[in-house]
């Protein structure tokens, strides 16, 4: 499967407060284009910590992280924010939309920040993404007028707006009921199948994980099965 989008080499991380606890131990793996990967493991095994390191939001770790062949280790905060903006889409357990903006504006914001297209084009693209997710009718509503499932779909649309290399999800279905979980999963599957989108999803849900291409199972800060 194509070239490597993301490579993690010997990533370790420790928390030092109040006592030193190593939460990640020598994590090494890589992600290729079009892969749909799930990370599972028990609570506290370090999977969320890993995700935040991979997403460049957490920079306090040892080892090497390459995204699109570039090392993230030496980059400054501003450069990392550009990487996040351009190459990574994020979906959280809680939707985290900005209630001050409409659904459409929420989707558009990362695109406006990237500032590679005109506002009109970004708006057009945002509509497209909402259409893919089947919620274009809600575009002009405020996020707090939507249901939980709808909000999560808006968050996915926002993650897609800059056509990132990879979408990362931190338990994106963790807060949804079965029906909405299925909807979100189907959307993920469609993104992989139709748009060749790479996905890295941290989840508790083994049912969900089983249906992905590859499962990375973690325990005590190590990958035990890949």
């Amino acid at each position, binding site marked *: 499967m194509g070239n490597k989008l993301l490579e993690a080499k010997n990533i370790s991380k420790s928390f030092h407060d109040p006592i030193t606890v190593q939460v990640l131990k020598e994590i090494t793996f890589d992600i290729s284009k079009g892969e749909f990967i799930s990370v599972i493991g028990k609570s506290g095994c370090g999977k*969320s910590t890993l995700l*935040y390191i991979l*997403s460049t*939001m*957490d920079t306090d770790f040892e080892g090497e992280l390459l995204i699109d062949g570039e090392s993230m280790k030496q980059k400054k*905060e*501003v450069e990392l*924010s*550009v990487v*996040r*903006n*351009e190459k990574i889409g*994020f979906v*959280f*357990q*809680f939707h*985290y*939309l*900005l*209630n*001050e*903006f409409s659904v459409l*504006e929420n989707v558009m*914001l*990362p695109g*406006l*920040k*990237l*500032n590679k297209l005109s*506002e009109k084009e970004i708006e057009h693209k945002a509509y497209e993404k909402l259409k893919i997710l089947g919620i274009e009718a809600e575009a002009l509503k405020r996020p707090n007028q939507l249901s939980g499932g709808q909000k999560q779909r808006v968050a996915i649309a*926002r993650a897609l707006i*800059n056509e990132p290399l990879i979408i990362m999800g*931190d338990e994106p279905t963790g807060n949804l009921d079965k029906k909405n979980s299925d909807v979100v999963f189907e959307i993920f599957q469609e993104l992989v199948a139709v748009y060749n989108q790479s996905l890295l999803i941290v989840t508790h849900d083994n049912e969900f994980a089983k249906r992905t291409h590859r499962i990375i199972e973690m325990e005590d800060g190590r990958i035990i099965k890949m």
Partner: protein
Amino acid sequence: MTKKLLIKISKALLLARWKQTLVAAIGVTFSIAMFISLLGFMGGLNNLLDGLMLNRTAHIRLYNDIEPSAKQPVELSEHFKHHYNFVSSVKPKKEQLNIYNSAAIMRNLKKDERVKGVAPKINTQVFFNVGVVDLNGMISGIDVDEESELFLFKDYVVKGNYHDLKTIPNSIILGKGAADKMLAQLGDNITLTTTQGNQFQLKVVGFYQSGIQELDKVQSYASIATAQKLLGESDLYITDIQIKLKDMNLAPAMAREFRRLYKTEAMDIQTANAQFETGSFVRTLISYAVGITLLIVAGFGIYNILNMMIYEKIDSIAILKATGFSGKDVNKIFTSIALSIGAFGGLLGLIFGLVFSLLIDLIPFNTASLPTVTTYPVDYNLYYYIIGAVFSVATTYLAGYFPSRKAATVDPVVIIRGK
């Protein structure tokens, strides 16, 4: 981040809690409005008090003083040049109070670029004869037009027409205090005796009130020609030349120059009225201190509200950062929020300040000592408005600086995982 996006996000955050924003802006508005109206009011009063003295005082006054000679005759002698000479019981010499060649001096002064105007004056002592009583008095012979233009003479003539002084021969404008003592009415003839012992009759054409009671009891005015007649002098006789300058601050230096040039005494206003300058400076200082305190208090208000706003918006900040906004962008957003509160509140403050000033200007203010003043004085100094505008933006920027920096350093992981 583009400016448009910055404005869009800041605006959304501002309007999301518009009531809170409004409270912050009103804080700025109130303090700027108070600053402007307070300074305008205090400035107005200050100018009024200064004007009491300064309007009627020449910036430089040329005159001859009766004083002992600086050099006694013995010192001029070649023979005693290298001796120590002790002269006891020195007396002032008989000096001409008349300024020599005054017409030429005045012509010369009027040509000077720095001089706004020149007015001649004759000061003489008289006794007013009222029945069996002789009242002490001073008569100033003045050039009515020049005096009016340079020293606002006509503003202080409370009754009668000041112009009659020029057109009616042998006329006098009496000080209000002196007139009250003499029970003199307009049109009355009064008798006075000059220091030379001559008696004259003058017609009362007006009353003069300066606001300084002691002065009004003795000071009266006549035309130059009348004063010359009282003294029995020629029409060249002038005892004072009063000079108004375009820039008052040049007075001390120019007084020195004139003293040398015209060989007369030259007194500048700063030396003559040093206490006024100190008083005026202290009053200005107090009003600025109060005004700036108001602005600083408003600054703390904005600081509080921005701090609160950032705690409320911390989730939004985290999500902005997760989706690719840098700490710098977040800092810019909150700084621009602070600045727009400051600019908007400040602008309203300037307008309200002007309105308050106009209202104060309408309140009646009548006082016996200030005949020309009918309402409270307000100084509409553009300078106050500029300071207010600059200060409103500067304090809000400072008030927003620390909260914005805090927002910039928010760690999105901590916020997102904290849920």
